[in-house]
Structures are given as C-alpha cells and as structure tokens.
C-alpha cells in the first residue's frame, strides 16, 4: 500500500503557494491593524498639541492683558487725582489771589504735603504767558503759547504733556486746567509733575518695586514672564519711562506705531531689531501716555516647542511600540494559522485515505467471496488431481489432467485479477492527472460490487449510448468518489432494487455522471446536511465523513456535486466534472 503521505510530502507541495498567500495575509493584517491603531493616535496627539498650545498661550497672554489694564487704571487714577487738585485750586482762589506769587507759593507748599511729586505751579493768562509762578526755577513771564499741551487746552479745557527734560534737567510733564474767573477772564493753572513718580506706572503698591536694570518684579507677581519689559510711551513711540531693553526715558522705543486702544490689547509684531514680540498695550485716557508690556515671543514658543517635542517623542515611541506589537502579534497568529492549515491538510489527506480504505472494507465480504471461490476451485481441482494419482489404478486421461489444470489456471487468473483491481484501487493516493475513460472506470468500481449485486438481485443499468467522453482527472480520487456514492446506493436499495448509471456530456468542457437508485430516499431535512462532516443517519455504523470527503474531492477536481431525493422513491447524485485538466 502506498501509505507514504507524510507531512513532508504535503508541505513540500504546498509551500510555494502557501508561502505567498500567508505573506500577503501577514502584510494586509499588519497594514490594516497599524493604520487602525496609529491614525487615531496621530489625530489625538495633534488635537492635544493644539489644545495644550492654546491653553499655554492663554496662560501667558492673559496675565499680560491684566497687567496692562491695571497699569492703565493706575495711571488714570494718578492723573485724575492731580487734575482734581488743580481744578480745586482754580475754583477756590480768585484770579487776583493767584496772581500773587506769595499766595501761589503758599498753595504749592500746601499741596506738596500730599503730592510730593508736584514740582511747581504757574498761572498763565489767556495769551499763554505765565504771569505768576511758584517753584524752584524762575519761570515767570515764560510763554507757553506754542506748546502742544497748551494748544490742547483750548479743545478740552485740560491737558497732560509728554515727559520732557528741558532746562530744569529734571524729567517731568505738565498738567494744566483752564478756568474762567469771576470777571469772565480765562486763565490757566499749570503744574509740573516729576516723571520719576510714574517710572513704574505711578503705583508701587500694585506693581511692586522695580530697580533699574533688574528684572520686572511686578511682572512676576502678576504671572507675566520675568523676561518681559513694561514701560510708558507717548503717541510718537518715545519712551516716557525707562525700559529694560529699549533704553532710558525719552529714547525712541523702536516699536512700530499701533492704533489707539482704550482697552488692553494684544498684538504680535517685530521691533526695530527684528525680534519677534508679543505686545500688550492700552492708552491712558486724557493723556499722551500708553502703557506697554513687551514679552519676547521665543519665551512663548519655548514652552510650546518643548511641548511639541515631548508629544512627538511620545507619539514616535507609541507608534514604534504599536507597530512592533502588531508585527509580532500578526506574525505569530499567521504562523499559527499556517501550521493549523498544514495540519488540517495532512489530516484531511489521511482522512481521505482512511475513507477509501473503509469503503474498500465495506466491499470485503464480496471480495472475500470472490477470492474464496477460485481458491476453492484450485484447492479441489488440485486435490482431485492428487486423488486420481494416488488412488486410481490406471493413470488419469490426458483430457482429465488438462481440464483440471485449466480450471486451476483460470481460477488463479481470477484471483490475480481481483487482487490487481484491489491494489490498483488502494494505491491511487498521489494526485496524478491522466486521461480516464469514464465507462471503464465505473465498470471497475462496479466490479467490486458485481457479486453483491447478483446475490441481492440488484439490477445495475448503464444508461448511456455512444462512446462516453473521457476526462482528464485523478483516477484514484474519481474511483473513491464513485465507490462512495455507489456504495451508498447499494446501501439504500432493497434486494431486487435498481441502480442506474448515466453519463451525459454537457458541453465540450464538462460531463455529468449521474447515479440514481430507487431506494429509501433522503428526508428533506437531512438533504441539506448530507455533505456536512460527521452527519450520518446510519447511527453506530457510519462516520458521517464519506459524503463530506466525496464533496471535498469533487471540488478539488474542479467539479461539482448535486443531489436530489424523494423519500420512498430514490436518490440521484449528479457529479459534474471538467473534461480538461482543472486549473490549479
């Protein structure tokens, strides 16, 4: 028997195709799983980055706006207090009183107890000439008619000048109010305010103390970056207070001109040196002053850059891990699947063989009888020959000896034919395509069942005319298919039943072989399951694998199998086979 179907045999045959197939499965699995795992990670990381950056920016810019708003408010308070002071002096004194320098000096001394930053006081007539003065310099008769702040008085009734360092050598700014006296004369009261008082936006309590050249103390306490710069500028961008990075008071700030804003506003810009900045600013109403807070953008970006780097590292490491796990896992699973498939193929092959042997086993009664009969003839003929030689007085005739030896030879030939058929049947396990005469093949298969048919008076009819077409297929497997089905037909019919075998060429590419019995038939609820593995109605005697294996073989040979049945009338199996070699 050619039971040489080993794992190695099957593996060798199937490896090239299987290898490609599993490789493709592996690649597709790895790609799909990776995409499904990595894409959401990338999207989430991107969203996270944006959210963090926005929150981060907000954390940096909000204190800047608050800082500037507070500065603006403090400056406004500072100016309005001094403005009210001037208004009060103008209201409570007559023009004549104010024209007296002694009176004015007294008033100055009085207000300096409250406002130490007020340097001097002056009364200006409606032509712009200072007619009375109290203070450290001799500024009586000074003409202010062409000063900007004086001209602004005509419009608003009060004004605040830019910070100047004129002949006095002290940085200061002028505040003035216009007042109409009892005699309808218009006069102006002017005070010079020491600019040092607003060097840190006028209010030390709110913003803390700041040394020149050191870090912004107030900034830190308000949550503004320590590298920020806070100062006042006027409408032309000239520094009104000293700055950390843009020089002393009265130096140009190098900042581009920005539109007036009464609310704290944030802009991103570049200064004259090309440095990227975030600037928060607000104008102080009724004055030329603008509160400015400048932070370098790099400080802002340094935070988001490190955030971006951290997120990129996290994402990179995660992707590497995911891909490594996916590749490892998929390789493992696909390898296991391949091993399982290979094992299954081997088991299936063994199962097919076992089925064929079982089918042959079922024929053994007939085969034993077929072999026993000629052996019995040989036995008795030889025995008779010896009897004649031993017991007869005269030698047996030449005819007698010839007839007996012919009997022996014929019987021996009969035995040989049976064993030859049987061996031929069992050995065809390797798939080998050859041209097969269907009529001869069917008759060979029936040869094993011929005796049973005759003992049970089962009529086997070949129902076709003409030369039946031949097919290119595997002989051993076709034998198995027909043996399984014809065996079933023999089992289905009663003694005296009928089995019809038909061969119908369908077209030049296919041929149908039908095996019809007039036996018990198959119940409709069972008909759908007869090709399922382990489905059997022969409780205790069948494995339920015969038709399942038959189905598998027919599929493998590129054909199809169909069954129709009616209970009590019989069953017809139709096997359609390709006449040519099946596509591998």
């Amino acid at each position, binding site marked *: 028997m050619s039971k040489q179907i080993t794992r190695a045999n099957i593996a060798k045959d199937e490896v090239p195709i299987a290898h490609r197939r599993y490789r493709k499965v592996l690649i597709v699995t790895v790609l799909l799983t990776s995409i499904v795992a990595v894409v959401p990670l990338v999207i989430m990381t991107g969203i996270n980055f944006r959210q963090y950056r926005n929150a981060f920016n907000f954390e940096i810019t909000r204190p800047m706006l608050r800082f500037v708003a507070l500065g603006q408010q403090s400056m406004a308070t500072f100016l309005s207090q001094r403005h009210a002071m001037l208004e009060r002096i103008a209201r409570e004194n007559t023009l004549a009183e104010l024209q007296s320098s002694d009176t004015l000096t007294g008033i100055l001394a009085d207000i300096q107890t409250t406002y130490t930053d007020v340097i001097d006081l002056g009364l200006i007539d409606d032509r712009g000439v200072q007619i009375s003065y109290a203070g450290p310099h001799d500024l009586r008769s000074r003409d202010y008619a062409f000063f900007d702040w004086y001209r602004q008085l005509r419009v608003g009734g009060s004004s605040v000048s830019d910070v100047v360092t004129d002949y006095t050598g002290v940085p200061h700014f002028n505040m003035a109010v216009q007042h109409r006296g009892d005699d309808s004369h218009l006069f102006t009261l002017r005070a010079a305010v020491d600019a040092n008082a607003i060097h840190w936006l006028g209010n030390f309590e709110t913003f803390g103390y700041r040394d020149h050249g050191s870090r912004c103390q107030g900034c830190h306490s308000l949550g503004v970056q320590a590298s920020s710069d806070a100062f006042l500028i006027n409408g032309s961008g000239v520094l009104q207070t000293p700055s950390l990075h843009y020089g002393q008071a009265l130096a140009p700030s190098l900042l581009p001109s920005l539109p007036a804003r009464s609310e704290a506003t944030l802009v991103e810009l570049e200064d004259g040196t090309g440095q990227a900045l975030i600037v928060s600013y607000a104008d102080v109403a009724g004055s030329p002053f603008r509160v400015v807070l400048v932070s370098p953008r790099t400080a802002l970006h340094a935070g988001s850059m490190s955030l971006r780097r951290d997120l990129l590292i996290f994402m990179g490491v995660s992707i590497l891990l995911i891909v490594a796990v996916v590749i490892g896992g998929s390789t493992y699973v696909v390898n296991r699947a391949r091993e399982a498939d290979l094992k299954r193929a081997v088991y299936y092959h063994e199962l097919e063989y076992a089925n064929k042997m079982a089918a042959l086993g079922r024929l053994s009664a*007939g085969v034993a*009888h077929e072999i*026993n009969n000629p052996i*019995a*003839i040989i036995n008795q003929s030889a025995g008779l020959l010896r*009897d004649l030689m031993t017991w007869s007085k005269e030698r047996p005739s030449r005819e007698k000896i010839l007839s007996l030896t012919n009997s022996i030879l014929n019987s021996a030939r009969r035995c040989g034919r049976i064993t030859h058929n049987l061996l031929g049947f069992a050995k065809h396990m390797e798939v080998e395509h050859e041209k097969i005469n269907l009529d001869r093949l069917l008759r060979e298969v029936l040869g094993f069942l011929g005796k049973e048919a005759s003992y049970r*008076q089962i009529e086997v009819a070949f129902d076709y005319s003409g030369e039946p077409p031949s097919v290119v297929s595997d002989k051993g497997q076709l034998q198995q298919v027909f043996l399984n089905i014809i065996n079933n037909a023999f089992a289905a019919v009663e003694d005296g039943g009928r089995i019809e075998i038909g061969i119908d060429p369908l077209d030049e590419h296919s041929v149908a072989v039908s095996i019809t019995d007039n036996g018990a038939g198959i119940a409709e609820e069972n008909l759908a399951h007869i090709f399922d593995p382990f489905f059997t109605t022969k409780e205790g005697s069948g494995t339920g694998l015969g038709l399942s294996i038959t189905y598998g073989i027919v599929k493998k040979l590129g054909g199809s199998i169909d069954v129709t049945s009616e209970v009590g009338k019989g069953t017809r199996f139709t096997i359609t086979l390709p006449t040519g070699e099946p596509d591998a």
Partner: protein
Amino acid sequence: MHEQGLRVLIVDDEQELVSAIGERLGLRGFRTKGVTSGEAALDYLAEHSCDVVLLDVKMPDLGGLEVLKRIRQLHPDTQVLMLTGHGSRRDAEEGMRLGAYDYLVKPVSIGVLCRLLQDAGSHAKKDHTET
C-alpha cells in the same frame, strides 16, 4: 468404505467446484450429485431423497439461506452443511439458526469435509430410525 454410500447433493454456482468436489467425494465412496443453483437443488430433492446437502450460501437468484429454509420444511430428514466464503460467516451462523447441521468456510480440506458429511449422515440416519 461405505456399503451403500451417503447420498450427498452438492449445490454451488461454480460448476468446476461442484464437479471437483463431487469426483473427490465419489472416490471416497460417497454417492454425489452436483447442481449449480438453488432451484435445481430443490427440483432434484423433489424427486430424489438425499442424506446430506452441501449448500453454498451465496448464490445468484435463489440464495443459500432460502434454499435451506425450504429443505428444512420439505425434507426434514435431509441434513444441510453450509459452505461459505470468509465474508459471509454471519450468513452461515444464520443458517445454523435455521437448522443447518454445521458450516464450513471455503476453501475446505477434503478430510474435514468427509468427516462432517459422515457425522451429518449418521445424524440423518439416526433421525430416520427415530421417526
């Protein structure tokens, strides 16, 4: 060896086997008759009496078991020895149940066959004398 010789009817569908066994038993003193079908055996027994029938179980048309049933019905004096192939041993046992004297599995040795025929024959004679 037998003054009168047992009358043996050999029934088998193989003509060559029937004639070879017949001749060998003849040489050993049996009176034999060979037929190749169940019908022929029943026909023969309808007209002739016989001590032992050597009956093949598997035969086309009328099978051995059917023939055995009819012999036991029609000719209760006649003993039946069943002759079977390996695969039909179960049929032979069924034959025993139906009243066969014994069964033999092919191929049989002539010595064993003779002894069983003698036993069956003396059994038949005994039955005969009792009735």
